[in-house]
């Protein structure tokens, strides 16, 4: 976006572009990453996801350090409320004994809520500030700074989470059922037969179906979160475009922005909750021996 007054298309494209650094033939370069493939990093996603996760850890750790049994403060009460909500969700769904599940669910829930929450910051605020800083401090050309502030609108982040869950799922499947049990689960269901020959014929069919089911878990988990948040972010951007269309557009856009933000208040915790619940359910399935 080189011009001072971008067209709508340029504006939207600019907003949907990550701040990138990537490895090219001339070494690591900023924001010239059309052909970089795997060896590029979305710096904004990395920074914001790390800061928000660290914020979660630090805030909750402070409460944990000074937790009072009697007369808990407001912040501690809020944290405990979150804990009991997560703990109840885990206990209702997961019946095994695993000290990892509850903290995992809590981390997923709070981290995703925080990352989704970035969506409610006005779309132009942080990119505009970053642009100003970049221009003033580093002498960059205006409009050449890219910043996407919602990490969950980056497919890498959502897949990072869902693949993490997927690996845990594989790990616990093998740990609880053994390699044989896990392979058996993949190959002997849903079609089975007492006839050995028929069973052997059925194995590839079962394997295909089960593998699809297995792989669908992380993909659906990651894509659901990404899709919801990406769509939400896109709508915010479109409404922001609308506000530039005269006085009527400005007022209408403002109202639409507010309505969409209120609706988004539902989507933010809901998507985090769905991600958390599905994680618990998948890991619970991994622990169940047939």
């Amino acid at each position: 976006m080189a011009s001072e007054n971008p067209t709508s298309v340029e504006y939207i494209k600019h907003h949907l572009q990550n701040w990138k650094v990537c490895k090219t033939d001339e070494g690591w370069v900023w924001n010239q990453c059309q052909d970089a493939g795997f060896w590029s990093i979305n710096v904004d996603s990395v920074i914001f996801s790390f800061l928000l996760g660290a914020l979660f850890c630090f805030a909750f750790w402070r409460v944990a350090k000074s937790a009072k049994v009697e007369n808990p403060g407001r912040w501690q009460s809020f944290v405990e409320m979150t804990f009991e909500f997560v703990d109840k969700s885990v206990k209702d769904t997961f019946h095994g004994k695993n000290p990892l599940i509850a903290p995992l669910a809590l981390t997923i829930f709070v981290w995703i809520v925080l990352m989704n929450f970035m969506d409610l910051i006005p779309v132009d605020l942080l990119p505009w500030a970053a642009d100003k800083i970049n221009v003033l401090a580093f002498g960059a050309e205006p409009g050449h700074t890219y910043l996407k502030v919602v990490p969950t609108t980056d497919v890498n982040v959502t897949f990072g989470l869902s693949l993490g869950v997927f690996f845990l799922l594989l790990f616990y499947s093998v740990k609880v059922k053994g390699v044989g049990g896990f392979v058996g689960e993949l190959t002997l269901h849903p079609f089975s037969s007492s006839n050995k020959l028929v069973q052997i014929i059925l194995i590839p069919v079962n394997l295909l179906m089960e593998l699809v089911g297995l792989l669908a878990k992380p993909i659906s988990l990651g894509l659901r979160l990404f899709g919801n948040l990406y769509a939400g972010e896109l709508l915010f951007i479109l409404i922001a475009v609308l506000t530039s269309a005269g006085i009527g557009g400005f007022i209408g856009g403002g109202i639409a922005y507010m309505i969409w933000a209120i609706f988004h208040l539902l989507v933010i915790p809901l998507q985090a909750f769905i991600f958390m619940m599905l994680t618990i359910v998948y890991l619970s399935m991994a622990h169940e021996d047939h």
Partner: protein
Amino acid sequence: MSIDLTLLFTMIFFIGFVWFCMKFVWPPIMATIKERQDKIAEGLAASERSAKDLELAQAKAADMLRDAKSQSAEIVDSAKKRHTEIVDSAKDDARSEADKIKNGAMAEIDQEVNRAREQLRSKVATLAVAGAEKVIERNIDESANNDLFDKLVKEL
């Protein structure tokens, strides 16, 4: 929008945060919540116990009150009895004392009467003798007179 190195970063962060949460955040807060739940349960049990204690104490107090009432009634009864006893014995004492004083007084009166009578008698005798001497103005046999007078005196 494509899969790139960001994915690896996110996964590393994810593992790190989950590990941190599992190690430093979840156990202490869960322990605090558990401790509070235990404390509340304990407090409820204690309050139930103390309510029972209160009931017992109330029953005991009622018993003691009843005992004290009956005891005090007994004491009042015995005091009344003692009171009448004392009054009766005082009356008896007073009566006997009065009798004694009356008897003494009576005896004294009798004595005085006797003595007065004796004096009167002797005085009358001498008076009579003197009167008679003067009346008859003659010397009479004193012994015969004495006999006469003695007779007279006895008749008095």
